[in-house]
């Protein structure tokens, strides 16, 4: 049983890959904790294990050893079907390259997780509209992703991640493919989700400036290992968010 105030907790989590006779330690005994409602950033150079950790937390991959507990559930012990349900309802993912399905419209992309969740058809349209309005993309619902700007595509991706009302949002370099102005727009959206909805957000980024400006805590990694962490000036907001949730 972990601390109920924690959204994410890893205990010596490792992910090793075997390449011939060589063992690649993509993630090596990383232990971190993220409280509910926190907006944390994972920073580090390429190959430091940031994305590997994010994939493990998203339930897309399984740790070689160690434990990963999200909202009191041990992901390592979940079956494949349970992990699918976890990805569907507990976490939302935002990718650097948006990962929208080009043959579908914006609304259809956003609706897709509702199909897997077997949400009744009659309530879907309203939920799609609500999610698109939240990211100010309602006017582009009928467009294809290729007809949208990078920022719009990323907002569509965020709307899709939010559609099943997840508790945790995992963002893998959400501004990596965007110019700084558009990147700021996306970060504003994420910030609003964290502040207004109390959503726990873990964001992978290369850019320390973005992490310092928008997140409350920075976790530094290198060579697959946890290096250090640092509080940002936004830390006070964490306490506010926790208070909000406690009151709720």
């Amino acid at each position, binding site marked *: 049983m972990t601390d109920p105030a924690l959204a994410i907790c890893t205990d010596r989590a490792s992910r090793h890959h075997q390449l011939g006779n060589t063992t690649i330690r993509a993630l090596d005994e990383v232990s971190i904790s993220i409280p509910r409602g926190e907006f944390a950033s994972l920073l580090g150079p390429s190959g430091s294990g940031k994305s590997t950790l994010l994939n493990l937390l998203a339930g897309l991959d399984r740790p070689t050893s160690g434990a990963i507990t999200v909202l009191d559930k041990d992901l390592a012990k979940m079956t494949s*079907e349970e992990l699918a349900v976890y990805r569907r309802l507990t976490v939302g993912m935002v990718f650097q390259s948006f990962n929208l399905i080009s043959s579908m419209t914006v609304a259809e992309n956003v609706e897709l997780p509702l199909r897997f969740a077997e949400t009744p058809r009659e309530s879907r349209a309203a939920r799609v509209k609500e999610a698109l309005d939240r990211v100010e993309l309602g006017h582009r619902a009928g467009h294809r992703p290729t007809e949208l700007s990078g920022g719009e595509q990323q907002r569509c991706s965020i709307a899709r991640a939010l559609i099943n009302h997840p508790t945790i949002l995992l963002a893998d370099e959400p501004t990596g493919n965007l110019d700084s102005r558009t990147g700021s727009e996306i970060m504003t959206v994420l910030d609003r989700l964290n502040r207004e909805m109390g959503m726990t957000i873990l964001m992978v980024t290369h850019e320390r400036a973005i992490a310092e400006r928008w997140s409350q805590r920075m976790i530094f990694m290198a060579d697959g290992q946890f290096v250090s962490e640092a509080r940002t000036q936004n830390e006070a907001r964490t306490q506010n968010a926790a208070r909000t949730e406690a009151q709720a």
Partner: protein
Amino acid sequence: MKAGDLLELAGRNLRESILRNSLTTAGISIGVASLLTTVALGIGLQELANRHIGQSGLFDTVYVTSMQDGRGGPDDDAEQPKPKQGAAPAKVLDENARQLVSQVPGVSSVDPEVRFMGDVRTGTVTANAPVGGEVTSSTPATSTPEAAPSVTPNAASAPAPDASHATFVAALPMSSRRDEAFENMKGHYFSRATAAEAIVSNRFAKEVDEKTPGSIVGKTITVQFASREPLPGSTSGGFSVVRKNETVTVVGLIESEPFGGMRRISGAGIFVPTAITEGWNVLQTSDFRGVATDADAQKTYPALLVQVATAGKVPEVQEAIKKLGFRTFSILDATKGLRRFFGILDIFLGIFGSLALIVASLAIINTLIMSVLERTREIGIMKAIGASDGDVKTLFFTEAGAMGLVGGFFGVLLGLGIGALINFGTNLYLTQHHESPDQVWSSPWWLVLFVMAFSIGLSFIAGLYPAARAAKLDPVQALRYE
């Protein structure tokens, strides 16, 4: 994922690569059409054979012959009783035998089969005579043969009023009226069992009058044949052979042979009621055998036609008659071998027809593997946002099944079209060769359903590997796939 969503997504995915999927579906259609066409052809041929056998009127008839009649043929099989060495002589088909058989439960009537060579003239000939002499007969259907002491050839004969025509004469019971040969005949069937009437075949009528064969109906013809007459005062069991003339009126003309030409009476030019031939004492081949084997030289029949009350009782009637010591033959015996033959034929036709469908199923595998490769990233996205392995597998299964369903539907339409063409072409050929049209291709509803189910089933099987491959994709690797 709910069925509606599954179908919607599968339809969308199939439309994305419409040309490739259409070509694969067309392949399935051709396979289904090939299977349907070949199997339906086998069924059609079987039905055609059954129809022609059915025309023989033997479905509710048992054909009885004497054990003396030991020649080979369809009735000469292992199930028939065999005369035993040193056993009592085989029973002959005489009047006693006829009475015995008629008492078997389920038998409605027993008629002797009569077929003999006759010399036919149009008009009335007033002579009946032993071979070598003549006997007069003044009224139709009656005769006054003159006894002759022995079979002695004599060159003298009465002058013919008209050209004579040698032909086989066969006897028909009144129950034969239901045969389809008499359905659209010119004239009518015998008015009663003992009427001095005849029905002639079109072939014989043309022999008499090539230009207007139909004009024979209503005319009187005289049939001259060999008759057996008892030897007065003889105790040796012999009989004399007498030439006899009988006059009958032609009341009908038929185009095709009765019973599809499948009985011993086939090839006959003239048909007369069985009842009147019994009074004619026609000499038949069985009479000579009677002289050789039976001390009394009694009148015997070459065969008896046993009419059974219902077709379902044929096996038990056959068994009872066999127990009486006679050989039996029914359509069930004939169709046993035929059913086996067509069963094997259908299997082979089905195998050849399925080949195209099996090739088409390989195309489905190929198409779906291509689709898995092309949609690897999409599969990764779907898994990342909550699709389970089962959802992905079911989606690919549905796509395979949809191709099978659509391909099967159009394949059935194509197959039915080809079948209609086969029937049309065959009938065109038959009509040009003055044959009556027939149906050689027949597709029963169960075959259509079977072919559709086979197409969908095979498509699902073809989708097994691609679906499993898609479901097993590692989402992390799939999301990195370019």
